[in-house]
């Protein structure tokens, strides 16, 4: 389906002037300034890859959120809002928040306290080097692909809105990301993520408010959605999911709860190193645990500035998503074009471009760490001085960005960026989550069970997707196929893990201390800080609050 590029709506061109470009320039001068400043603080590979484990929870929390707030959220979720209506909130309230809370409460202590550098490094400690290498390679490939998607989405926006040619946009934005990640490593990536979070909100809130005013407020919006192509089902999240055919997602509630809410979401949020890395850069265990939980609160309300604009676009632009109209992904850019005057327009464009770059920087900083630590240092050249790995990390960053430019063109072949991402997640993260959860709670699980479970699970995910594409399995929508593909991969991984475990010898308990539930490592120093005793820093309390709030938010949209 190489129709993506030709669909780039020729009539969509933002009326940007010098003022908007000034706003954009100020932002990128600041970003590069942070890169140069951070360079002074980067002395060791630990500084470069994990920010020296020094950041407070609110920074790592917002960075955790922003690492995911790239192309996926802004354009993809608004596109889903147009296509599926209110049901898109599943991606937030059931498809993200519970998993983020689980990561913070249950899994982060294992990650952080075992002092691993990465998710594959954890697999090496819990299982063996082969499992580490397998995961490191699939992760590295996935990050490059996703970085390419971010770049491509960015280039689409720049091309459509500012009139920049595709290749020029790709090269310029890749160069900016490259500059600040090479200079400052994870620190400058994280700083930019936090900054980007506030700028994108400053751009999206005016779009949402003006969009709502234009369609006559919430009641006007609801009326008009009922009369739109989506109709009344577009206003409900759960109605019609009993049979699977009468809701816009085309998904059964079991698929939503188990596929999206459990396998896909837990897989992505708890084992995706681009996310977990933000927690590992926190200053102590409490801050690491709070990282995803602090991120969960803004995550609950982000649909207000993605799904609502999507619905507004649905009722305002009737040709959206039609064969001869603009694509779903243009929902937010179309609103910006129609509603924002110069000035705020510059802020919104800056926020969008920054969010793509932040998303890409997250992929690249995850990639360089895994490549350096888990592929090169663990399996190619061990025992080199720290300086060597720092240099290698910078080289891997350059290579990652160059490869990302290449894969940006692959992303062009898919009709909806979000579906493509979901498909990738079901390949790489669902089986990984099965391996993790069994390995964490079952100390008998053997090293080779980790490897074979992960391998067969990943292959099963691929196989189910290919079978769906070839028409052998009928899941209806692509979205539904990713739910079920993830589920199949999870089950295959779990079954193979159990069978292989029963046939092989377990690791001795002393090697598993601190890596398995119930086998704590008494030799670890406690790192709790004085302020951590306060109730507002309790991961369990804050996590429970986020889940309850998420459930409550569903009530008006059942």
């Amino acid at each position: 389906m190489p129709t993506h590029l030709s669909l780039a709506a020729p009539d969509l061109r933002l009326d940007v002037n010098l003022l908007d470009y000034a706003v954009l320039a100020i932002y990128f001068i600041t970003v590069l300034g942070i890169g140069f400043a951070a360079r002074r603080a980067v002395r060791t590979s630990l500084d470069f890859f994990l920010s020296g484990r020094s950041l407070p929870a609110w920074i790592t929390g917002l960075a955790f959120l922003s690492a995911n707030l790239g192309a996926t959220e802004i354009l993809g979720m608004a596109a889903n809002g147009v296509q599926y209506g209110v049901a898109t909130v599943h991606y937030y309230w059931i498809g993200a928040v519970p998993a983020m809370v689980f990561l913070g409460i249950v899994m982060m202590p294992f990650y952080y306290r075992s002092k691993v550098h990465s998710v594959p490094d954890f697999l090496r400690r819990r299982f063996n080097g082969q499992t580490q290498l397998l995961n490191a390679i699939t992760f590295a490939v996935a990050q490059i692909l996703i970085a390419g998607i971010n770049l491509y989405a960015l280039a689409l926006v720049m091309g459509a809105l500012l009139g920049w040619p595709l290749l020029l946009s790709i090269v310029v934005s890749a160069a900016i990301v490259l500059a600040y990640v090479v200079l400052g490593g994870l620190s400058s990536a994280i700083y930019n993520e936090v900054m980007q979070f506030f700028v994108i909100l400053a751009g999206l809130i005016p779009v949402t408010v003006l969009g709502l005013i234009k369609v006559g407020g919430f009641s006007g919006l609801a009326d008009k959605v009922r009369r739109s192509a989506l109709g009344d089902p577009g206003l409900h999240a759960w109605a019609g999911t009993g049979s699977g055919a009468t809701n816009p997602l085309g998904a059964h509630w079991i698929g939503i709860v188990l596929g999206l809410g459990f396998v896909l979401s837990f897989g992505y949020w708890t084992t995706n190193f681009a996310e977990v890395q933000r927690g590992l850069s926190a200053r102590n265990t409490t801050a690491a645990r709070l990282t995803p939980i602090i991120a969960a609160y803004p995550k609950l309300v982000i649909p207000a500035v993605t799904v609502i604009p999507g619905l507004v676009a649905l009722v305002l632009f009737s040709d959206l998503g039609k064969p001869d109209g603009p694509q779903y992904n243009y929902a937010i850019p179309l609103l910006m074009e129609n509603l924002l005057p110069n000035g705020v327009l510059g802020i919104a464009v800056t926020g969008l471009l920054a969010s793509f770059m932040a998303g890409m920087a997250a992929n690249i900083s995850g990639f360089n760490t895994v490549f350096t630590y888990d592929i090169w240092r663990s399996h190619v050249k061990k025992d080199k001085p720290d300086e060597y790995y720092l240099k290698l990390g910078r080289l891997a960053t350059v290579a990652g960005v160059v490869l990302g430019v290449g894969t940006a063109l692959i992303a062009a072949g898919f009709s909806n960026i979000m579906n493509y991402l979901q498909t990738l997640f079901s390949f790489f993260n669902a089986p990984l989550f099965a391996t993790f959860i069994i390995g964490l709670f079952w100390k008998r699980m053997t090293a080779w069970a980790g490897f074979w479970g992960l391998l067969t699970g990943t292959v099963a995910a691929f196989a189910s997707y290919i079978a769906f594409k070839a028409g052998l399995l009928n899941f209806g929508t692509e979205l539904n196929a990713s739910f079920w593909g993830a589920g199949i991969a999870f089950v295959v991984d779990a079954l193979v893990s159990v069978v292989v475990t029963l046939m092989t010898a377990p690791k001795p308990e002393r090697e598993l201390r601190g890596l398995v539930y119930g086998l704590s490592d008494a030799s670890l120093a406690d790192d709790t800080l004085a302020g951590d005793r306060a109730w507002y820093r309790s991961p369990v309390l804050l996590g429970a609050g986020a889940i309850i709030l998420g459930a409550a938010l569903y009530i008006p949209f059942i």
Partner: protein
Amino acid sequence: MHDPANASGPADATRATDPADPAGAGDTGDRERAARLFDIRRIIGGLFLLYGVILTVVGLLDGAAAVQKAEGVRINLWTGVAMIVVGAVFLAWERLRPVDAPGAPAEDTTTLDTEETARHA
């Protein structure tokens, strides 16, 4: 695994080989100054203040066309004022609690006694 030729001094050698030092107590003064100056709160505060002022001025000068495009709302002015407020909050936060920077937080590095915190782990 640490390179003896690494010029970064003994304090950094500790940091590189001993990641069990999460608060970064081995920091040099130079590093802390850099962390202070580039405290993210100061950067966000400054950026939002600058953006806020620009938008407020633009919002006051906006012609009828710009206001009409935004459904009759002086959106530049409103956004500008909101950004000034957010920027000021960040700068005030940084002023009031400067130690919370990603350097070596003084108040927060006090480690609690182990019995007290065993349940947190």
